[in-house]
């Protein structure tokens, strides 16, 4: 069981700050291409985590819309 952030995609606005926070924490660079979270908006808001997400919670701390919260856990 790996803890991953709890998401409410309906609140996501695609500001991409979660991707920036994730990549900065992991690589020291703001680089959405290296983020382990991916957001989209055109076909309905989506938030997805890659397999290697470490559940560090940086994305949740960066989200100003309440779309990602730290309390989730998923297998």
């Amino acid at each position, binding site marked *: 069981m790996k803890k991953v952030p709890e998401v409410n995609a309906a609140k996501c*606005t695609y*500001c991409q700050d979660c991707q920036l926070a994730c990549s900065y924490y992991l690589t020291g660079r*703001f680089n959405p*291409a*290296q983020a382990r979270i991916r957001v989209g908006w055109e076909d309905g808001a989506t938030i997805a985590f890659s397999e290697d997400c470490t559940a560090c919670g940086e994305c949740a701390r960066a989200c100003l819309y309440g779309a990602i919260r730290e309390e989730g856990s998923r297998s």
Partner: protein
Amino acid sequence: MIRIKEVDLTSTTVLSRDREDKSLKKYLGGAGINLRLARDLIPQGVDPLAPENAVILGAGSVVGASVPGANKVLVTTKYPMTGTIGTGVAGMAFAGQMKWAGLDHLAVKGRSPKPVYLLITDDRVAICDASSLWGRDVYETTDFLRKKHSPQASVLAIGAAGENLVSLSLAMVDKVSSIGKGGLGAVLGSKNLKAVVALGTGGTRPADPQGYEAAVGPVRERIRNFSPRLQWVEEGIMRKWEYRAAGFIHKNWTRSFPLAEATELYGPEVYHHQAKKGRVACLSCPIAEKEILQVREGPFAGMVTYAGNFPGRVGNWGIRCGVGGYDRVVKCQDLANRSGLCAHSASALIDFALELYEQNILTNQDTGGLELKRDFATVHRLLEMIIAREGLGEVLGDGYQGLIRRFGGKVEEQAQHMKFMDFQKDARKTGLDSTEFAQVVNPRGGRHQSGGSVSAHRQPLEVLKEYAARTGVPASAFPRIFAPPYGFHVGRFTAHCEVWYSLMNCLGICTEAQLNQFYTLADCARIFSAVTGVPLAPEEMQSAGERVWTLLKMLNVREGFSRKDDRFPECWLDPLGNESEALFLTDNRGNQLGEEDLRTLLDGYYEEHGWDVPQGIPTLERLAELGLRYVS
């Protein structure tokens, strides 16, 4: 190092033109470096649609590093609608992708023999064939290029209006954010440049990570702790309804539209039921200002399109042009977006043409037999004609200059414009605040954004003073701004608003009031220093903002513009028809203003900048102080 690529579409060459960081200290990046490049790349007197005109794209200097509201791409060129040089601004993710690709600025000149698009990837710019895209609309083009390169790619594209060299054209970023009112679409179209795609995978890092946290952290906390913010996001852009709708005017700036009637037709409740689908934010924006629209019923049911400042679009299509309910307003907006046509310019010109027709100044002979009515069918048909440059549409598509050139006489007398650009705010309705005044003196044409936003709608003097202090207006200027006989000298105040606007456009931070309120001049200097590694004190940043605005002014002085062109629209000296009583031009305290007052306020504006008052242009001494003698 400032990373610059220069593309010549005629010779199909791409050269690196990197500059040292000392230019960053002087011009701050973004709009500032764009203008410095424009000084060398846009020849004096050039035809905007000639291959020699340059288009310069720049990412704001702190974009891409999760700085709140920092997402702006700036585009500088000479515009066909006005013949002025100016800088357009858009959000979404284009500037971020430029930064992550390792590019700060992209200058494009020449003319490709066939349609092309530019692909910005990591440290590289490629010229790619766009033959199959020519004739496709903005949405189709964006979808195609994202499918081809990456769903994460950001796309700046033109539609048919740009391809057909319409002066009312612009470009669209990621389908949502418009840029380049005044004919950027036509300038790109003249170069056979259909789109620019940006896709970076290298990322960016602040030069001083510790300084970055210390500088950005407090701004982010201010935003997080600002309790109305999430309610704003929930309400979306319609939270500004009363402010926007109170300014609705139609019939060529002669009649105010009643607020109660506008609210009944298009107010927030109607909007939520009939048009709202959702909202989308620009990169790192905590406010989510862009709207996703969907028609609920009728012949266009299911149609999805996008808009920033949607109440303004209601004013354009619903109020000015009288197209009807939300389904038709959204349909007109969709056509404008897909064609890369400026909704504000097009609706202003159509409203003007309808008014001229109603007065029998334009006749069926002029319209090619088309009977002009304030209804959806007529307006949609006129839009199609403008986009295709067909019949009367060809004349309208060239803006006020086109109409005056074709019809002269009474048309010229009734044309309300600023440097031949339509404007958005009428001081008779709101009082002459800095946003209204800024339109008159903006070197590019009737754009209000450089006037800030806090002073709109007759704010108390205390609020104006707080704004001035926050944005770094020197204490020595306060006695000049807040002084008799007006109590608030809007001309002098606007001069300082322009400096703030200028430096924000260099950093790439949004100037929208709801976001901008979280920043001070000191914040900007700290963030700039930490992200770029170029140390800068607040006072130096203020001077750089003044330098950049003065450079913009000088590029237009070089084109022959001066005080004679900073003209208040004649209609402002006539009463505005209203429900119960006529509205007269007043200052923001409600005191009526006449021609002599306007001259005095203009005098103060030039004087505050340190410019020559009779000519309304920078003096040699002022240019020397700012390190701009080379542009005199």
